[in-house]
């Protein structure tokens, strides 16, 4: 039951963060009710998505319970993506 409680708490947190992301877009970018600037919102929203991804991977996919090498494996794929995206993006700046 402890696990199910933990899963439920994480689910609630994920829903709340998603709602906040949407609210930020609505208030700052869409309606311009708050003057924060695009890039501030951009990074806040991306960091929030990253936190959600870490939560799903860590607890729902049980990455925290697996050998650390599983995390390194996924990180290797992510590093490839970052290298490609950053390299290609920077090349045309």
């Amino acid at each position, binding site marked *: 039951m402890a*696990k*199910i409680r933990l*899963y*439920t708490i*994480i*689910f609630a947190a*994920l*829903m709340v963060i*998603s*709602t906040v*992301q*949407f609210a*930020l*877009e*609505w208030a700052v*970018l*869409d309606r311009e009710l708050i003057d924060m600037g*695009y890039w501030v*919102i*951009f990074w806040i*929203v*991306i960091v929030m*998505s990253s936190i*959600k*991804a870490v939560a*799903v*991977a860590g607890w*729902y*996919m*049980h990455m925290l319970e*697996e*050998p*650390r*090498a*599983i995390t390194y*494996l*996924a990180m*290797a*794929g*992510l590093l*490839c*993506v970052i*290298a*490609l*995206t950053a*390299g*290609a*993006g*920077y*090349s*045309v*700046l």
Partner: protein
Amino acid sequence: MSDDNTHEHDDGHDGHLPPKSSVKRWLVTTNHKDIGILYTITAIFFLIFAGILAMLIRVQMWESGHFILSDLGYNQVVTAHGLLMVFWFLSPFAFGLANYFVPLQIGAADLAFPRLNAVSYWLYLFSGVLLGVSFFQGASLPTGWTLYAPLNLPAFIPGVAELGSMSAILALIIFVASVTIGSVNFLTTMYRMRAEGLRMRDTPLFSISILLTVWMMLFAFAALLAALILLSFDHVFAGEAGQGYFGSEEGGSLLWTHLFWFFGHPEVYIVFFPALGVMAEVVQTFSGRRLVGRKWFIIAMALVAIQSFIVWMHHMFLTSINLPIKTVMMVTTIGISLPFDLMMFALIYTMIKGRVRWKTPFLFVLGAIILFILGGITGVFLGAIVLDYSFRGTYWVVAHFHYVMASGAVALIGGLYYWYPKITGKMYNEFLGKVHFVLAFIGFNLLYFPLFVVWETPRRWFHYDGMTVAPTIPFTDIVLFETGFTIWHQMATIGAFLFAASFLVMFYNLFVSLYSDRVVDESPWAYTGSAEWTVSSPPPETNFPGAPSFATGKLNFLEGPATDGGTETAKTDGGVAHAGDTVEKHPDHASWWPLLMSLAALVTAIGISGLETSYFVWPFVFAIPFFVGYLGFEGARKDGFTPVHGIYMAAAMPLFALFGIVFHLHHGVPGGFIEANQYFWIATVGAFFGVATLISMGYESFFAPEPKPELTEQWPFEGVTNTKLGMWVFLGSDIVLFGAFIGSYIFMRIQHGWTDWWVSATYESKAVWPGLVNTYVLLASSFTIVLALAYAKKGSKRGTLGFLAITFIGAGAFMINKIIEWNELYINQGWTFNADVMASAYYLTTGLHAAHVVVGMLIMLFLFARAYSGAYWSEDEDAYTIEYFGLYWHFVDIVWLFLFPLFYLL
């Protein structure tokens, strides 16, 4: 155990292998040694295919304007030659050896997933067949093996190659599927199934080279897959009129080069690393000593494998990328040559320190080292920005990479001679082997060295008459030879024929030796260090006489089975366990489904190649009800009839009717069916056939035992099952696939002007609300699938089925919402796939994600039916299958967590 010792199953399942003389054996086998032989022979077939194309090229180049091929024909031949040699010969040839010898070298009975290994092979074979088919569809791809944009788009090759180009692209996609499945299999095997006491660092060098190769394959081919999927959609939706993704003004053609070379440069090492492994093995064996600096040799290989992903832009020095990134890439490129220097010195110094035996395998490896050094040095020129400005697109490049690639091929041929006695139990003819080497070495150098001399010949041109001047020393006016280009090209052509003829000697030698009386025992070589030489030639069916162990520092065979699952509770056709019904359980080695499933992929791909745009999705849409109905039918047959199976079978007809109505609205019934071209029907038959084979394979009882953990080295993945690790490895590849899609979108958006992106889109309004709703729905489905797992572990049928059902409903809700969203944008707002680059990026990226959701839904239907019949939650069952599926499903969720902000919010 020999063939005679293969067994029949007590449950009547046809798991035994027919004898090697039977054709059926080679169609159903999942044994790694058989598949290794199939890979090797098939790769040699493609070598001959691509070699004949090479002869055509060289005949065309005999003199400028000397035609045996048309312009378009020449371009097709050059393209197919490159693709076949790189993809369908070099790597698969290496993986023939890897399939055969990696399990033997690490002390495993087979690969972790034998049926998937067979799937890899058959997909490989049929993908090559599809490339051959492309020539008979008017014309094949005429782009060169790099498929550079925009010449890879229908708009820039109007009137030619519509069907054949698409078939060639689909052939590459199927090939990538084969490679990815193979990578998952090898990585899982090598991390989880090494014999007791065999530390990773002590693994034989050929196996280590394969390990690093498959790591590179896993990530690099995923980037290529992304590029190919995008390209195929350009072919389907952009047509001859549109610009598509890679023809867009937002750097579309530059994006292709990024994606292609992010794959393409690691591909060079993917091709070459197995050859390095062969070089190390052969040099050790024929020098009679362990490799000098073995540890540093391994570290150098690992360094290259990592660094290979940060050098790709040295292929792009003449594009519009900026100077700072060119400089970075020049440094990393020059840097990557250093570990290679170390490796070459290690090989050479081992020869010097040892006592060389000049046998055929050694001669080939020595020749390969010489060729590689020449190829490597000439490559360093191309890594320097300023020199590359002159050398790019010339025969310098052609000569350089043929020296590198053929060096790999020559080493692998050495590997074939080296292991031929082990595979066949017979010794080849040493004299003919040496004749082959001499002819090949002279022929190769006569073929390619003159091309350095006439380096000013433009690459892929056969009209070089304007160039028939005296060759000069690069960057000077010093005349090198007082002749024109023609004589050098003629020398190259003679060299090509000599090189080709040398292989006839090899074919004769290896074929005749099969029937000779030169029988070998465990090893024909005086000094060997790896496990394959400790067993008979050819090795027994189960590889070893007992469980291999290196625990004492040398190889021993322990008594007793090396695997878990020696017995299991007998199952009736309904999967119901009866206490006390235990039977001995043997590993399975035979299945028809890998062959049939791959054949279905070929048929479907041929169909797709000619599908009209408006019919594109329909074969697959109609395959969904067939999937549901057939799942019910097959499930009832294998697990016993339950109400769920009845519901599935009953649901198929209404689903057909529903999709039929939608089809009627678009095309009219029966008019739409009558007007559909033959490719629609081929794709439909292929899709239905594929569905049936997939389900049949899913329900097939196939036992591939995992080794006992106490008799196995599993660092660093102890405590993870093979299937779970396999799933994680697959997800690693999927990260790069989605990452390349998202990276492409980011690249285009940067090119366009980041904040102007959505402002420039030609739709009326962004779909933020549907995005939020789908985020909620997917997060909820992640939550419920993890609850399904929790309840399965608790043994709760209600909880397991309930949460599986809720997850399925959530996924369905996601798809319905997605259809509404797309309908609004596509139909009501007229924002079609090709309306602008924003639309292409949006539909393709979210579409790839939606396709993952649909696949997940189909798998859930399978899981639900099986769970209803008692799987996963009841006694003696385990919940792991739900966990493996959950990993996939959560990953799909994670991808959406980034698509939501990037495509809906920001």
